[in-house]
């Protein structure tokens, strides 16, 4: 009973983490078909900024988190206008450009000493609560709560605000949206900024329970990719369902087989999916046109 409850709760935590990481990537791709391969790098960069705010600039926790989110969003925005706008529409070049950008960021951070297990962020709230024999610390509880809150926020944002509606309009039919006066470049830049901000938010919430190392950039990117592909790129429901599947599968293998297999589970899930249903669980992309 206790083992089962433990499994259920930590599986939920892992799933919440996965959707937190993937939602930014999926959102940017869903809105403007922009594969942001710098997602993991921006996550690490945001973690680095928060760490700096706390330990170097000493401006307090909440201000550093807000600063990191704003700066990361700005970086995403300027990445669009500086680099991506020149290769817009050529998906392969977009992938290579953002991937190269992510290498630049990660290797620069690594050069300035951000590797290994020596850096981490303190939890928002210390302490833990015990529920029927299962110990859950507050930070992991915050991960679950903030993921739920984020999904709710995104729903309201995309349905009831002007920018959110513009995002959805571009995602549904770019040409009609442009005829109605929505600037597709502006929306793409904003969506990239938004996705980057979500990466920063994920960093702020998750790094306190993991660690801050430039090596994890690739892992974060892969998790984002795996969850987004499994759920069907550009679908929020898909992201949540896919994170639940992969999250529970990972916790299952980690607790009953061996922790080494965590990443392998996620990657094998993708390959099985591709063999059976290439458009993802909730894929909105037209199969023939996009994947064949």
């Amino acid at each position, binding site marked *: 009973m206790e083992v089962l409850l433990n499994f259920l709760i930590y599986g939920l935590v892992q799933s919440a983490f996965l959707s937190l990481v993937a939602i930014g990537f999926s959102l940017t791709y869903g809105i403007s078909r922009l*594969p942001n391969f710098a997602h993991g790098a921006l996550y690490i960069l945001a973690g680095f900024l928060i760490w700096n705010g706390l330990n170097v600039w000493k401006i307090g926790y909440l201000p550093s988190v807000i600063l990191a989110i704003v700066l990361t969003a700005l970086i995403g925005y300027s990445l669009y206008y*500086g*680099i*991506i706008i*020149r*290769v817009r529409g050529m*998906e*392969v*070049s*977009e*992938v*290579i*450009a953002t*991937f*190269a*950008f992510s*290498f*630049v960021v990660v*290797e*620069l951070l*690594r*050069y300035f000493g951000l590797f290994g297990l020596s850096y981490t962020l303190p939890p928002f709230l210390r302490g833990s609560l015990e529920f029927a024999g299962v110990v859950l610390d507050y930070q992991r509880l915050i991960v679950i709560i903030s993921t739920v809150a984020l999904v709710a926020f995104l729903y309201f944002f995309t349905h009831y605000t002007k920018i959110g509606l513009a995002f959805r309009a571009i995602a549904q039919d770019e040409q009609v949206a442009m005829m109605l006066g929505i600037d597709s470049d502006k929306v793409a830049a904003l969506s990239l900024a938004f996705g980057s901000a979500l990466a920063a938010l994920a960093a702020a919430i998750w790094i306190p329970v993991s660690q801050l190392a430039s090596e994890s950039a*690739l892992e974060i*990117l*892969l998790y984002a*990719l*795996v969850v987004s*592909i499994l759920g069907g790129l550009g679908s929020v429901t898909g992201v949540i369902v896919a994170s639940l599947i992969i999250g529970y599968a990972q916790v299952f293998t980690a607790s009953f087989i*061996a922790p*080494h*297999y965590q*990443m*392998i589970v996620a*990657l*094998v899930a*993708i*390959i099985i999916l*591709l*063999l059976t249903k*290439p458009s993802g669980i909730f894929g909105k992309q037209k199969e*023939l046109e*996009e*994947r*064949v």
Partner: protein
Amino acid sequence: MSELRKERIDRPIKARTDDIYALMGYKEISYLLLPRVLPIAVLLILPLIVPNLYYLRVLNIALSFAILAASWDFLANYVGLVSLGHALFFGIGAYTAGAFSAYFDLPIFVTIPLATLIGATISTALIYPTLKVRGVYFSLITLAFPLLLARLIEATDILGGTLGITDVEGFPNPWVESYLLIFSLIVVVFGLRRLLGEDLGIVLRAIKDNDLTVEASGINVNKYRAIAVFISSAIASFVGAYTAHSYMFVGLPYLNLEYSIFPIAATVVGGMSSIAGAAIGAFILVPLSEALREFGTLRIAIYSLLLMLFIAIRPEGIYMFLWRKYHQIERWVKA
């Protein structure tokens, strides 16, 4: 005052040697031969004139990356399969050669061809399920493959696990080591360019442009994609096998992302869709990154930056620039 505009037209000699193919004397012949013979001659002489073994090592690295980049360029820009995990092919080749050499004591001239073939077969079998997705999805998935393999080796502790295989046979002498690569580079670059002009190459290029049309013509697209993956991964596996013997070691670093990003950087800097451009790019980036070796991983940041700037600002790369200078003239004309 009339407005002037810059016009760029082919040199007359290009029209004669290229379109009409009227070779009249040594001028036309040497115009055709120069860009082909000169690089070959330079390559053949280079190992003889490098001052010491360190530079010979740099030359070997440049040569092997040039071959790797050529195989990436072939797959990405002629078949449209942009792999972000070329390290997979490279690593599989290296591990195959290393295992054959260390566990079965096979001589080096057996392990390298064997690793090339077996590596390509394994790679193609692994990649085959993902061939039905295309464009960005293929990139997303290939990115994961080298990591998956590395984790698998780490978790199951096969093939030396995290320590790697150390007793791999080395090359008998540095001349074999260098000239093997030089001849391979020449064969790969000219072979691939020739292949792309043949029927197979035409089908592959058509698949890149519009695979639905090719499928509508009754051609099995997946089969041809698999053939292309086989060719490309055979070349990459060969480089992997070579590198394994050259360092006398195989381990997890062979599946490092650096081996995936470097061919891309070399191809983009050198010029996409030309095969030769990829080699040129490698010959620019490898010495550069060697010069920056004292800065450690910062060299990856630097060539990633170059990659990003080139793809955004100069996507044609160096090869096309040279091609234009050689074949065309620019002049101002009245608009």
